[in-house]
C-alpha cells in the first residue's frame, strides 16, 4: 500500500485509458504523456499498460507501507532517486518529489502497478467525465498489484526537454477557415494558457479566422485535434478530450508530438509546423 501524504497541485492514477467507448460518450482518458508511463513501466518489468501516478508540477510525498521498486519518467523532478532507472523504496520510507526542472507531468510507476479498482476496464481518472478513481489527496491509500515478470531493463537515459514544436496534419475542417489560417497558426508561437488541463492545452496568440459562419454539427474528435472555438484561440486536445465536439478542427497534432504537448506548462511558448497528410 502507498499512502499519499501530499499530492502536489494535481495528481491522478493513470493507465492507458478506455479506448473503444467514444460512441457511448466515454473519453479515452489515460496518461497524457503515454510514452512516459510506458517507459516507467518497462523499467520495472511491468506490462506497459499498468497504472501509475501522473503528477502535475510534482511536489508529491508518498509513504510506502511496503517496500517496492519504483521508476520515474516524464518531467524530471528533484528527488533522491533520479529519473529513468528503477530504485528500491524500503518499507516505511517516504518518497519526496520536487518541482520538475522542465515539463509538467511526471509518472511514478511501481512494480506490480497501482491496483485501484478498474472502471470500464481502466484505472484512469477521467477529469472530464469523473470516471475512475478520485484525484489523489493527502490520505489516499493506493494498493499495489502483484509483480509479474522480471526487471530486465536497468537504465533509460532521461531525455532533455524537446523543442516545443508540434507538427500538424491539416484538417478535417481547415476549409472552415480563411485560406491563410494554417499559415497563421504556424507563423508565430502561441503561449500556453493557465486554464490548460488534461482535456486540452489552451493557447493564446494569433486569432484563427473562420471563413464559414454557422454551426458545425457535432462530430467525433481525436486526441491531438486542434479545435478552434469562436474566440479563434486554438485548443490542442489531450487525453480527457470530449469524444464529440462542435467546433471546427483546423488540424491534428502528430501522435509522436502528443507527449510534447502534454508536457507544456502554462506560460510556455509553442510553435506549430504543418506536415501534410500522406
Amino acid at each position, binding site marked *: 500500500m502507498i499512502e499519499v501524504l501530499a499530492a502536489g497541485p494535481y495528481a491522478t492514477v493513470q493507465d492507458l485509458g478506455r*479506448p*473503444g*467507448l*467514444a*460512441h*457511448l*460518450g*466515454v473519453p479515452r482518458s489515460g496518461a497524457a504523456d503515454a510514452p512516459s508511463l510506458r517507459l516507467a513501466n518497462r523499467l520495472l518489468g511491468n506490462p506497459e499498460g499498468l497504472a501509475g501516478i501522473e503528477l502535475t508540477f510534482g511536489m508529491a510525498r508518498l509513504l510506502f507501507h511496503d517496500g517496492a521498486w519504483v521508476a520515474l519518467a516524464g518531467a524530471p523532478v528533484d528527488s533522491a532517486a533520479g529519473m529513468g532507472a528503477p530504485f528500491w523504496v524500503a518499507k516505511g520510507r517516504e518518497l519526496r518529489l520536487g518541482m520538475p526542472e522542465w515539463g509538467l507531468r511526471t509518472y511514478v510507476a511501481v512494480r506490480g502497478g497501482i491496483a485501484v479498482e478498474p*472502471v*470500464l476496464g481502466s484505472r484512469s481518472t477521467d477529469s472530464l*467525465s*469523473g*470516471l475512475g478513481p478520485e484525484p489523489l489527496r493527502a490520505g489516499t491509500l493506493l494498493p499495489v498489484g502483484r509483480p509479474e515478470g522480471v526487471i530486465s531493463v536497468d537504465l533509460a537515459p532521461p531525455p532533455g526537454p524537446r523543442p516545443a514544436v508540434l507538427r500538424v*496534419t491539416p*484538417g*478535417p475542417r481547415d476549409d472552415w477557415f480563411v485560406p491563410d489560417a494554417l499559415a497563421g497558426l504556424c507563423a508565430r508561437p502561441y503561449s500556453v494558457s493557465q486554464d490548460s488541463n488534461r482535456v486540452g492545452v489552451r493557447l493564446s496568440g494569433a486569432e484563427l479566422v473562420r471563413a464559414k459562419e454557422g454551426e458545425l*454539427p*457535432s*462530430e*467525433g*474528435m*481525436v486526441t*491531438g*485535434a486542434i479545435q478552434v472555438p469562436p474566440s479563434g484561440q486554438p485548443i490542442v486536445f489531450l487525453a480527457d478530450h*470530449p*469524444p*464529440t*465536439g462542435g467546433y471546427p*478542427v483546423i488540424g*491534428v*497534432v*502528430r*501522435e509522436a508530438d502528443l507527449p510534447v504537448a502534454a508536457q507544456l506548462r502554462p506560460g510556455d511558448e509553442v510553435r506549430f509546423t504543418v506536415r501534410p*497528410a*500522406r
Partner: protein
Amino acid sequence: MIRAVGEHGLLVETGSLELSHRLDAALRADRPAGVVEIVAGPRTVLIVAPRANHGRLRAHLAGVIAQERDKGDATSADAAVMTIPVVYDGADLESVAALAGISVDEVVSRHAAQELVVGWLGFAPGFAYLTGLDPVLETPRLDTPRTSVPAGSVAVAGPYSAVYPSASPGGWRLIGRTSVRVWDVTADPPSLFRPGVRVRFQPA
C-alpha cells in the same frame, strides 16, 4: 467524401443522421481490422484505426457507404423500440408548457407520442441526444444551468430530449424522471443507448 483526421482517423461525410447510423451499424457488425473507434455524429462517422492500412480502409468504407445508401429506408424500421417509463413531474414542466403555449398535459402527451432516435452520445458518458422531438416542445436551455441534475432526469433542450445518465451539472429543462438506469459502469455495455436506438417515453 472521406476526410483525413490526423494520421489515424477518417471522417466520413454521410450528410444525414440516418446514413450515419446505418454506416455505424454496418461497421460494428463487420468491423474492419485495426478499427478502434467508430463515432457516429449527425452528419459524419469518425473511424479511428491506428495500425490499419488507410488506403485499403478508405476503399472499404466507400463500398460500405454505397451499399448502405442503396438500401433505402427499410433497415432501421425493424429494430426494437426501447420503452422508458417516465414520471412527468419535472421542475421545468410548467415553463416548457408556457414557452410552447400549451398545457402541461399536452407537453406530456406530445413528449410520449413521438418515437425518438438516439442521434449520438456526448457531453457525458451515456448522455444521448434523442432526435425526433415534437417541434412544439423545442425550448431554449436554461439561462443559468443547474449545478446538479439528478441521474434519471428526463429533459428537453432545443430539438433534443435526453435522460441524464448520472448526476451532473446541466442546463436542459427537466420535465420528468425515470427509474431506468440508462448508464451503469458495471454493465456490459454500460449504456442502454447507442446511436440509432429507437426510444419511446411512456407516462408511468
